[in-house]
């Protein structure tokens, strides 16, 4: 305990000294430091800050020092996070390597793979993307068909992935491939390869809401060394499931953590667009819809708090991630639908001078919200999981 306070003092002092002033201002999504071969740092300070943190392994605070990590205990890592927050230090590096692949490699990778990849993730030299979904394998991810055929010392990969976030900007991919056609889950392997390999191509996906980080990724006889297989052959599904848990938790946060803080509360929007009468929002029906929505959101946030408190108390109910994913995304969609009703004509703009920037952004966000209940496991899949795992209803 005393050591921890010692650690806190040292950390605070180091952060004070090493975090550039410009890295202690609020950041937007556009300021995210992804790293990678082709990444252009928005400023010299950003590069410096990332480098200083990476040098101490504090971009991956709990990873072993042997792989470039910080080697911190989880208590120390928590202190680091608190101090960074207290001093408004920006996140120095954010990547799928740090959040997804790294933990998987630590758990399932062999020594050579850890040595090869983890330090580059910590440094932000290599940017990773995730090759999971396919046109025919969405909710039924295990139905994937991208094949990796044994060709002696390497695999030959052929197939078509979709929803590969930032595939066009990434250096390497961690990818689910089929290595046995006769077993569904038991025929999937987890491969790593360089996106510059011959036969890899990508195409960005335009969404109904406009440009997106998503890509389609095509593999045409891509050669992948066998050393790049993580875990055993045909055992990739276990790794995939572990990674999906992370993803689901990330998406359910969409609904309640409005990171940009730009969205005006519905009541404020309503005052502006619907006017007031007797000091209240003039349209009493929409006023009630707004209040009900805000109350449900409060109820949902209380549930997140309670789940966290119960988890600490060891009373977890299970399948909470499915519940949060389901409710958070449905509630978020409902918020945008309500916003559309309030904004009326103002909510229907696409571009050009007839609409405010806020209006145009909200149109896009409304459209984008429709994907929340599809990506990372559809609402239907979450309800199935709850019915089966929590309620014990039969198949």
């Amino acid at each position, binding site marked *: 305990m005393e050591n921890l306070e010692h650690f806190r003092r040292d950390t605070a002092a180091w952060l004070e000294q090493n975090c550039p002033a410009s890295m202690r201002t609020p950041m937007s999504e556009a300021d995210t430091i992804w790293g990678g071969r082709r990444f252009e740092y928005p400023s010299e300070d950003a590069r410096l800050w990332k480098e200083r943190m990476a040098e101490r392994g504090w971009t991956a605070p709990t990873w072993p020092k042997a792989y470039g990590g910080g080697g911190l205990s989880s208590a120390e890592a928590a202190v680091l996070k608190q101090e960074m927050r207290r001093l408004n230090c920006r996140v120095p590096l954010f990547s799928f390597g740090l959040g997804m692949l790294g933990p998987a490699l630590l758990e399932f990778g062999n020594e050579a793979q850890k040595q090869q990849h983890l330090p580059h993730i910590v440094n932000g030299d290599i940017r990773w993307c995730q090759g999971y979904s396919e046109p025919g394998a969405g909710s039924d991810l295990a139905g994937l068909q991208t094949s990796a055929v044994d060709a002696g010392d390497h695999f030959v990969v052929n197939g078509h992935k979709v929803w590969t976030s930032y595939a066009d900007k990434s250096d390497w991919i961690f990818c689910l491939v089929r290595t046995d056609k006769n077993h569904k889950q038991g025929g999937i392997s987890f491969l790593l390869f360089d996106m510059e390999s011959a036969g890899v191509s990508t195409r960005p996906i335009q969404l109904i809401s406009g440009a997106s980080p998503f890509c389609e990724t095509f593999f045409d006889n891509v050669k992948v060394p066998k050393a790049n297989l993580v875990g055993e052959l045909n055992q990739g599904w276990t790794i995939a499931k572990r990674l999906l848990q992370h993803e689901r938790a990330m998406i359910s946060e969409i609904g309640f953590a409005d990171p940009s803080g730009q969205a005006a509360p519905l*009541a404020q929007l*309503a*005052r502006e667009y619907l006017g007031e009468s007797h000091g*209240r*929002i003039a349209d009493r029906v929409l*006023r*009630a819809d*707004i*209040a*009900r929505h*805000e*109350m*449900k959101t*409060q*109820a*949902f946030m*209380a*549930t997140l*708090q*309670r789940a966290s*408190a*119960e988890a600490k*108390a060891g*009373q977890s*109910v299970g399948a909470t991630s499915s*519940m949060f994913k*389901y*409710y958070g995304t449905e509630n978020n969609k409902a918020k945008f639908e309500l916003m559309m009703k309030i904004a009326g004509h103002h909510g229907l703009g696409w571009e050009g001078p007839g609409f405010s920037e806020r209006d145009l952004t909200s149109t896009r966000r409304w459209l984008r919200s429709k994907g929340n209940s599809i990506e990372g496991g559809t609402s*239907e899949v*979450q*309800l*199935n999981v*709850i*019915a089966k795992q*929590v*309620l*014990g*209803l*039969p*198949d």
Partner: protein
Amino acid sequence: MSMVLNAEQCATQAAAKKLIQARSPVLALRKLRDEKADRGFDESLWQQMVELGWAGILIPEEYGGLGLSPGYLSVVLEECGRTLAASPLWSSSLFATYLLVHCADSAIRRDTLAALAAGQCQVAVALEERARHAPYDIDTVLSAGEHSTLTGRKHFVVNGHVADKFIVSCRDAHNQLRLVLVDAAHKGVRVERNWMVDSHNSATVYFDNVTITSEQFLGSADTVQLFDSALDVARLGLAAEMLGSASEAFERTLAYLKEREQFGVIIGSFQGLKHRAANMFVELELARSCVRAGFSYLDEGGSDATQLAKLASIAKMQLSQTLNLVSNESVQMHGGIGMTDEHEIGFFLKRARVLEQLLGDDVFHVDRYAELNGY
């Protein structure tokens, strides 16, 4: 906020479950109904509750109570909700007692609290005069002059016909809200028992020129604030009871879905029903969080009236909506047997609507929440 029960509350809940499941299953309510029991609840069970200290949970130790926070009562109410148990716990030991505990000191208050803790007295709050909950829309008046008199008519008075005293809301000559404590036996007080759909107690109470002396007033300049807080605590108490009822109805229905076969399969295997069950589960989880949030705030000594009001309105809204959904789905999913009086699930449906209306349904609380937020 802690959001979880502490160890003592868990123990209280376990004790409550044991007693109530044994002594007051749904069958007990059926018997009270079929026998048209005079008191409308089981007096010997009530005395057992008193012995366990539940009547005095909110009452300071100096008056013979336990001096605990409302969270301890919430877990008992939740267990009562599970079996639809009838008792004066909510009406007298929570709602009326909270008012008396928090009003200004006086002899009448001291005496009444001691009697309440000892289970020798029951107090009912008489407030409603409209079809829907409207605590400030009242016609009951307190005449001015040396000898004030109370005149008016209150309905939906829970446990009114067994109450020894009433706390009555009224308007004085300055149109100010006042709360007065009136003896049921007082001249000019007349009580008419109503037979409700849920077989719980409710009465219409008439006050005809009932003489009121200054000691009978609860609160003074702060009456509105006192009344509001008491209403909010009582609403949270209802929410706790509703949580018990909704959870129980849901669990019974879930068990039925796993047991009933049609077309050669367990009906719980139909995805249409599964998704509806999963959705109910999520709403119930939200409901539980709202109840816990409200009582955590009270247990931790939260004293901001607006914050309490918001928590209470959110809880009463969420529970009204959820209990409405669950009670309807429970009957539908039970099918024909759910429509019979012989089956117990219908009791949950009947009780549900009463609990929804008491101190405001979702429509009321949505409006109030908007009001509290200034829009």
